């Protein structure tokens, strides 16, 4: 059974179909590569899997569940609450001055005790007048705006990056996207954010549990940094790292999320041969930790060397799939990379 199941994925940008009906399955504990010429739609697939894009059609199933915010009772309750609050708020805001007049100004004499019950009764009397129109109309508008707005926002955030991240999908980016003004350690600690529990109260008051969690997280972060070989750079700013180290830090940050699946977008880009071979070792070690790896790579030495399975995209369509030997012999793949041979091209 596949860990990640991409079914019939289609992505359109305006009139351009970037990815067309692609099916890929990523088995657990394997290294799967996605290759293809530039512009084939590989990164688009990654962006759809991690919730950055909302696909035009198709399903992305992770652990046999759709990567999407589910509609739960909590969601319904929250939407209802927002609608209710905005309904009441709107009713009061629309009538604020006359309400104040009837409830407060009319009942308060300078420095005399204030009759609170009468004031509250006056509010009800004010709203009860004219068949409650003063209340019903603005509160209906408020409920519509508040509830509807909240629903639209929720609907649009159903497929959000943090949903995929919380499900257990980590990723790196083709053009490195580290938090450049944060230290190496902070970058990794941020990756752990989903596992940390301390909230506002703990942080503001620095309760003992805050320190305990902080120490524990730092210990884990240092372990991960040692794993990728960055233990010398813990307090450096991310932007001051060497290029190869920045790539490793991105991987470390992803691993800190304790993902089940790690997506690597061209991890070997711009690396020298020595760095490439140590990267291959690192990727194998990552799989040994029980993390499935799905990678995009142009570096054929890496792809052929470590992949258990390879999928080939061209012009947004999957043209081949299989082990490295199978893919290497596939005429469609050769055509996509090298073009058709001269004799095969029909004269026009």
């Amino acid at each position, binding site marked *: 059974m596949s860990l990640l199941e991409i079914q019939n994925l289609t992505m359109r940008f305006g009139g351009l179909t970037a990815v067309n009906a692609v099916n890929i399955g990523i088995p657990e504990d394997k290294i799967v590569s996605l290759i293809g010429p530039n512009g084939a739609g590989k990164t688009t697939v990654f962006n759809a899997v*991690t919730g*950055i894009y909302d696909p035009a059609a198709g399903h992305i199933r992770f652990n046999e569940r759709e990567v999407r915010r589910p509609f739960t009772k909590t969601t319904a309750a929250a939407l209802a609450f927002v609608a209710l609050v905005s309904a009441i708020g709107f009713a009061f805001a629309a009538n*604020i*001055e006359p309400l*104040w*007049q009837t409830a*407060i*100004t009319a*009942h*308060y004499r*300078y420095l005399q005790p204030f009759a609170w019950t009468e*004031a509250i009764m006056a509010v009800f009397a004010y709203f009860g007048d004219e068949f409650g129109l003063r209340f019903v109309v603005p509160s209906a508008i408020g409920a519509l705006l508040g509830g509807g*707005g909240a629903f639209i*926002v929720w609907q649009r*955030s159903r497929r*959000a*990056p*943090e949903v995929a*991240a*919380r499900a257990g999908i*980590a*990723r790196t*980016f083709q053009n490195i*996207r*580290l*938090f*450049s*003004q*944060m*230290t190496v*350690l*902070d970058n990794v*600690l*941020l*990756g752990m*954010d*989903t596992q*940390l529990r*301390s*909230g*506002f109260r*703990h*942080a*503001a*008051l*620095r309760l003992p549990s*805050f*320190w305990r969690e*902080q*120490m524990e997280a*730092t210990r884990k972060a*240092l372990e991960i940094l040692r794993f990728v070989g960055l233990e010398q*750079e*813990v*307090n*450096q*700013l991310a932007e*001051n790292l060497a290029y190869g180290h920045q790539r490793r830090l991105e991987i470390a*940050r992803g691993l800190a*999320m304790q993902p089940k699946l790690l997506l690597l977008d061209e991890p070997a880009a711009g690396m020298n041969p020595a760095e490439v071979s140590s990267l291959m070792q690192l990727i194998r070690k990552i799989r040994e930790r029980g993390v499935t790896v799905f990678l995009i790579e142009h570096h054929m030495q890496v792809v052929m060397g470590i992949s258990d399975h390879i999928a080939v995209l061209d012009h947004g369509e999957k043209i081949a799939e299989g082990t490295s030997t199978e893919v290497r012999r596939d005429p469609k793949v050769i055509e996509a990379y090298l073009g058709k041979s001269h004799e095969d091209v029909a004269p026009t």
Partner: protein
Amino acid sequence: MKARWQFHWLFLVIVAVVPLAELVLPQGWRIAALLRPIFIMAMLGLGLNILTGFTGILNLGVAAFMAVGAYSYAILTCDIYPFQLGFWSATGLTILVGLTVGLLLGLPTIRLRGDYLAIVTLGFGEIVQDVLKNIDTITKGTQGINPLPAPTFFGYAFRSEVYWPWYYLFLGCLALVVLLNRNLRRSRLGRAWISIREDELAAACMGVNTMQRKLVAFALGAAQCSLAGALWASFLGSTGEPGNYDFQVSIMALCIVIVGGMGNVAGVLLGALVVAGFNSIVLEDLTSFLKAHELISSSNVLTVPGNWKYMLFGLALILMMRFKPEGLLPSRQLKAELHPHEPRNPPSL
């Protein structure tokens, strides 16, 4: 481990002894009473710093939050209304009102990006002033709400002639705000804020709920600004007219954050000292000095230094942006560069 100097604690300690030092200083040197507005501006700057410095949301309407704070404090305490709460409970409620208003502004607008959100906050600043001017049954329009009762502290009533109780009240509130900001900055929440500033998409891909964290920043920033507003109103004994909370106050807060060092609590304190100090001490003293020596006449507005201040603030912003965009006291992260191999204890939070 080497103790690192933390400017914000140094600042608070030095400022705490200023009134004592004044006892031996000659009359003309006494500035402690003039420092009180600086504390308020520092609080306002720290509120803005959460938004602009930590989270990277440009807010051009913090004066509106200050107005909300001042007016809700005034309505809760002034004896022309039935509530008439004491200073402490009114301040507490004002902070809650500020939180709510921050959330209300944040909820519908937080999905906007960068400049667009800045424009929304700019508009919000103007709308709040107009609303306060126009619902005059409640806010007394352009008169402002006054007089406000002076705070009391365990039975001791503050008086406007004696400055030092106010001084320590504001200083204490500022110290609490500084502590809160520092603690939050070096926590999971602060890390999430900074990551959103650095790269929002990457932060979201790491599982950070960016929308929620930005809303928290909005609410906390607004709450701090409204606390500043409440203290300001209690200090003046009046809210003043709504026009007092105009765009220029927001820009001054922004000036404080940028000149001091965005995203650094200590930097904001220094910025408040420089910008607000320049405004309320240097310019005032210069004016009275020139007046005393008959170098200026009130008929020629160009000769009054106070009239130049907004031009000077603008100039300061331009010069800072050109020559030292990270501010006078940049965030401590930059210092981490200098000791790359030295593990910190506790490791950098």
